[in-house]
């Protein structure tokens, strides 16, 4: 293990990350909300720690390998989340656990919040929260498109060959730097488009920035307690739906589409196609239940709310226009379940990812056919290409761990005295990086105790790091040289 190299990279991360505090600082100065010290102090601390780390290990320029990759990925989210909590501790007057929860939730693009009274919170803080999600989103794209396939986490080695850019085994940096540039350009482009869309549909410029940041990152922080319901505007809902949906696409497909200017790539991608079908089906199911249970008078209203909520949930954004926790019968639980599916791989969305769900289904069906034809040989195929056994096994393992950790986290929460519905939804929403829950955590997470907040923070990290990255770190074998 090249600890020095890891420390050096981490130092650089911290230095770069500290610059993220400058925009909210400028806003604070500009508006004069008196919060600027809350950003200057963390800026000094983060920049200082980063520089120190970097300075001590500046000569450790070893080539990074898989092992360091796991460590860096985990450290990126854990350490940056901790440092990101500083402005909230100082400015948001939250205690450390709350601030850490909020920062982790932002950085993993979950969007669960412990803060209330957002409408009266300083603008710079609101901007900072959304910006954190946006930065987290940038990290996730690189993680999901470039790093995880290399590390072969949960069957994601599938995408190794498909991603553009040069590919050299075992050497992480050149390839990642290369792909990152491409994807960030698209990410920034989409964010700008989203801002324009919001402004055109009547949002103020500040709100447009804040919301576009958390829309594209499928995070879900809003600058209002009422979330998107604050605007009660159909155009804004539609803009949000479109960009949440786009944010949940595989960014390498976006890349292909933009480079070749051929929208056919979207339709030809089996994962995106399945994702669109699942979304359409879920929207319809929810709308029908809402309509037949007389929650909304007209089918159109039911469809409008169903479409917004379903897309928001399945892309793991977590914006709300209606309090879906009080929707009738199975709808809240159904929404929780579909958040497990999540968006496409290589997107900013959470959940297990559509490709894995697709493969789980195909493999399950294959097992069924195998019973009818015991001698049958039949690989699972996506778009006519057989999936290697290692990837299928990886996906099974991923699924089992997902379920296991879900159950474990739920039991741990209940051990702390939480009721079943709240515990179920809290773990679901955090492990899938979605945002709102049911029961006591339907609106925000302020009323649960610190022990539960820490567990949920870890759930967010586990979900974001696709489980295996963290599992690997706690396995003794990893540390043996």
């Amino acid at each position: 293990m090249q600890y020095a190299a890891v420390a050096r990279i981490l130092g650089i991360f911290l230095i770069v990350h500290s610059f993220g505090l400058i925009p909210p600082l400028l806003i604070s100065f500009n508006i004069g909300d008196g919060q600027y010290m809350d950003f200057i102090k963390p800026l000094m601390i983060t920049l200082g720690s980063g520089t120190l780390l970097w300075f001590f290990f500046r000569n450790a320029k070893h080539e990074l390998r898989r092992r360091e990759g796991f460590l860096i990925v985990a450290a990126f989210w854990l350490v940056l989340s901790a440092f990101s909590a500083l402005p909230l501790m100082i400015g948001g007057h939250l205690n450390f656990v709350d601030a850490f929860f909020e920062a982790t939730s932002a950085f993993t693009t979950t969007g669960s919040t412990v803060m209330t009274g957002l409408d009266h919170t300083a603008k710079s803080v609101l901007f900072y929260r959304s910006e954190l999600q946006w930065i987290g989103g940038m990290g996730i794209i690189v993680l999901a498109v470039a790093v995880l396939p290399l590390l072969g986490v949960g069957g994601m080695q599938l995408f190794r060959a498909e991603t553009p850019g040069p590919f050299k085994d075992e050497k992480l940096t050149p390839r990642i730097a290369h792909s990152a540039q491409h994807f960030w350009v698209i990410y920034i482009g989409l964010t700008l488009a989203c801002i324009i869309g919001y402004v055109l549909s009547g949002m103020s410029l500040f709100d447009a920035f804040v919301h576009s940041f958390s829309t594209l990152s499928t995070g879900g922080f809003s600058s209002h307690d009422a979330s998107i319901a604050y605007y009660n505007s159909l155009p804004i809902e539609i803009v949000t739906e479109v960009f949440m949906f786009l944010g949940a696409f595989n960014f390498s497909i976006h890349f292909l589409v933009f480079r070749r200017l051929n929208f056919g790539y979207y339709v030809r991608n089996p994962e995106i196609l399945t994702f669109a079908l699942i979304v359409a089906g879920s929207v319809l199911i929810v709308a029908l239940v809402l309509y037949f249970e007389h929650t909304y008078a007209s089918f159109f209203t039911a469809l409008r709310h169903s479409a917004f909520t379903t897309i928001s949930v399945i892309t793991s954004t977590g914006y709300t226009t209606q309090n879906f926790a009080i929707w009738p019968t199975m709808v809240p639980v159904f929404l929780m379940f579909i958040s497990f599916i999540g968006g496409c791989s290589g997107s900013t969305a959470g959940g297990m990812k559509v490709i894995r769900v697709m493969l789980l289904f195909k493999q399950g069906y294959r097992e069924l056919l195998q019973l009818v034809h015991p001698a049958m040989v039949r690989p699972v195929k996506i778009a006519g290409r057989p999936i290697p056994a290692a990837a299928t096994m990886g996906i099974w393992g991923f699924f089992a761990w997902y379920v296991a950790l879900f159950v474990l986290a739920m039991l741990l929460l209940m051990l702390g005295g939480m009721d079943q519905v709240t515990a179920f939804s809290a773990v679901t929403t955090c492990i899938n990086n979605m945002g709102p829950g049911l029961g006591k955590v339907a609106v925000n997470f302020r009323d649960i105790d610190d022990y539960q907040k820490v567990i949920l923070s870890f759930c967010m990290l586990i979900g974001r790091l696709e489980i295996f990255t963290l599992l690997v770190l706690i396995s003794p074998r990893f540390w043996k040289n």
Partner: protein
Amino acid sequence: MKIIILGAGQVGSSLAENLTTEANDITLVDHNPDLLRALQDHLDIRTVQGEASYPEVLASAGADDADMIIAVTDSDETNMIACQVAYTIFHTPTKIARVRAVEYLNHTQLFAQEALPIDVLISPEQLITDNIRRLIETPGALQVLDFADGQVQLVGVKAYYGGPLVGNELRRLREHMPNIDTRVAAIYRRNRAIIPEGHTVIEADDEVFFIAAKKDIRAVMSELRRVDNPYKRIIVAGGGNIGRRVAMSLERKYQVKVIDHNAPRTQLLSSELESSIVLYGDAADQDLLLEENIENTDVYCALTNDDEANILSSMLAKRLGARKVMTLINRAAYVDLVQSGDIDIAISPQQVTIGSLLTHVRRGDVVRVHSLRRGAAEAIEAVAHGDASSSKVVGRRIEELKLPPGTTIGAIVRGNDVIIAHHDTRIESEDHVILFVINKKYIVDVEKLFQVGFTFI
């Protein structure tokens, strides 16, 4: 005609055997001296031992004045290079090569005259696949041959009790089916050919060859036997080159299962095939066949490259209840052995391949030749050229033609029209005439008939 055959394998040697009886000058090239000696012993051919693509070897085989070179060695590459050599050094007019690999065949520009100078590409696997596909598309037929791009088919069926025409004279066919035109080209009764006349009575177990437009085939067959329902469930034993192609060409329309006993091969097959079910196991495993509902299978095709395994597994499948079994049999001797027994249809790769080679050997403008009944009979599609003065056929009615004995004109394709031949049908220039020749020794006469006379320029 001077012909050099490269490769004395299954196809090469049986081709030599077929051509040598027609007063051709055959030279066979192979690198296996034993094989050549054995062939030379019982055939009137010349043999040259050596690597087929070397110019010296070709020269010593008489490539200088050869009319045709047929490259059918095991290796695609040798075949292609041999044709190149023949073209560049010896200027051989007609070059035929067997190329199996789809990887080459997919790029047609490779075989343009300026690239690889091959005039005719033959792919036995593809021919056999097409043959099997036609048989499966025409339930009940023993043989289905395409003419004029599939507009006309020659179909061989066995007449059974219960067919309306069985026990009746041929001329009743018209009364039975006033709207459908067909012509019975030949009848084989206990392996002997009968020249069909209007008063010929069809008996049960006769093998009847008739020619009709493709759409009418089913109706005609229903006159001769109870018509089988269209096939649906097919088991292919052996996932080699042929089995794979057959499965690929059938899987869209039929429920296909492929059995192979080679694990890596099944992996490959299952990734290439879309909807077929690939089974790993021994095709002669009774339990496996039962498990896969052999008793409800319409067609069992044994397509491995092992004759004995094919025959045995086919017999087993038939015993277990498969409705039809088709078996690929390389050795001619086995074909006779099994044909009248449990195995419904024996497919001989040589016979299928040779037809397409013979097409290019025949004089006159012959578009298609199908070799039948182990080469004893032939069905020919020839084009009539010229006018009444230069051609022996154009402008004449069929009854006026001096056809050799045992030769029937079945149909004429004029543009897109299919005309079933009657005694008063007049042949025009550019007609495609489909003939059935019961005895091969009259082929030469047929060729002469379709050659344009000297007056034609």
